[in-house]
């Protein structure tokens, strides 16, 4: 997404460890969102989890708890790792869109493939998917994750100043953007297989 460079990796379903956190009725999701120390345009960050990363990991985990068919894998865990290598605004949203594809690509059964994007406000204008510079001049930021099939909101955060009308318009913008983002996600999923197919066809 723009200048963001984000990797997402998925492991599992595998035995949930440590044992005491496992749930005998369903799988649990683990999520770790981290930013590389060199990822921002500004000063050097500290590696690993700060309070911001802990919160983002938690809300991201909740997005995928909503769609993964957890009942199928009791006692197991699905781990999602999101690593922001270069950041340019809206990294939590881009991370979710990316991890969603990683989950689908690894064949983990889901009832929907979520995407996320942020709505910001500069002056009185709502804008979609702010980059870092726009973010610096914005007076509101509202990241949203959507399950596109049912149009449900599975992540919503906001800070700044928005009227109820702007919140309504913002969510509409996110739903509309979903048509493009979901399409890109499906293309990304298909791409490796198309390459194999091309190779195969060239060989016969």
């Amino acid at each position, binding site marked *: 997404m723009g200048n963001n460079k984000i990797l997402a990796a998925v492991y599992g379903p595998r035995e949930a460890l440590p044992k005491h956190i496992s749930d005998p009725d369903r799988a649990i999701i683990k999520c770790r969102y981290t930013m590389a120390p060199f990822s921002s345009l500004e000063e050097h960050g500290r590696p690993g989890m700060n309070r911001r990363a802990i919160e983002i990991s938690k809300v991201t985990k909740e997005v995928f708890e909503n769609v993964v068919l957890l009942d199928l894998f009791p006692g197991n865990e699905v781990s999602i790792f999101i690593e922001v290598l270069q950041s340019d605004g809206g990294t939590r949203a881009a991370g979710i869109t990316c991890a969603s594809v990683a989950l689908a690509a690894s064949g983990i059964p889901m009832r929907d493939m979520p995407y996320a994007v942020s709505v910001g406000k500069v002056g009185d204008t709502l804008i979609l998917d702010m980059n870092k510079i726009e973010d610096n001049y914005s007076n509101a930021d509202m990241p949203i994750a959507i399950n596109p099939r049912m149009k449900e909101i599975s992540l919503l955060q906001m*800070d700044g100043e928005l009227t109820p009308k702007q919140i309504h318009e913002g969510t509409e913008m996110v739903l509309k953007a979903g048509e493009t983002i979901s399409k890109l996600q499906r293309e990304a999923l298909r791409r490796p297989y198309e390459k194999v197919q091309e190779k195969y066809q060239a060989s016969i």
Partner: protein
Amino acid sequence: MNITTTTEQYIRERLTKGVREGGRDLFSFRNINLEVGRMPNAEGSAEINLGNTKVLVGIKLDVGEPMRDKPDEGSIMTGAELLPLAHHTYDAGPPSAEAVELARVVDRGIRAAGVIDLKKLFIEEEKAWNVFIDVYVLNYDGNLFDAATLAAVAALNTSKMPKYEDEKVVRENMGKLEISNICTSCTYAKVADTIILDTDGNEEDFSVARLTVANDEKAVRAMQKGLGGSFTTKELDTLVDTTFEKSKALRKIIQGIKGD
């Protein structure tokens, strides 16, 4: 396989009839009892009893270096402690993700609403006031978000302001901390397909999705959705409108409390 407990069944059955514990309806708060100045050593403090949820907030001010990206402003730091004595699931140790989320959501509302004008906390080059907001959960019975936000804003609203004289913080004959705005929050949860305001501990156990909306008189200032469930956009619009209606009474509570 889903095992339905007696409590869950009881809550579900009552919710379908629109009734809740204590006879309140789906969109009312439990009794709120808010007292300020309980901890006189702190610059500001407030203790809230929201039903059986009990939260204490302490405010301290200290002089330190401004944040590097905001050299002409003071800063706010919000922490939350889920004390092991408050609930059987709370453990001692570094803050859990739950505690970090609570602190950050309270912080976000206060910061976005500009409850404190950070520019006014600037003292001189490389010196500014840091405001420490510490949320102590003393007893858990649901809805920590609204309890903590109410108590934190009430504590700030009645907090004293130390002086800075001859490179020292003087905590004698303190004036009042200047407050620029008031914000409150309303937290909703989806329990068995019904949306309710201000969940108690039992209702929270069976909540699938949670939404906190923090606002001032004019606009929404912060939001946070939590838990593994979801909301529709229509539900979001309704809850935002409900918040403006419900927050009037909350704001009155804070404005009605005068410190000494």
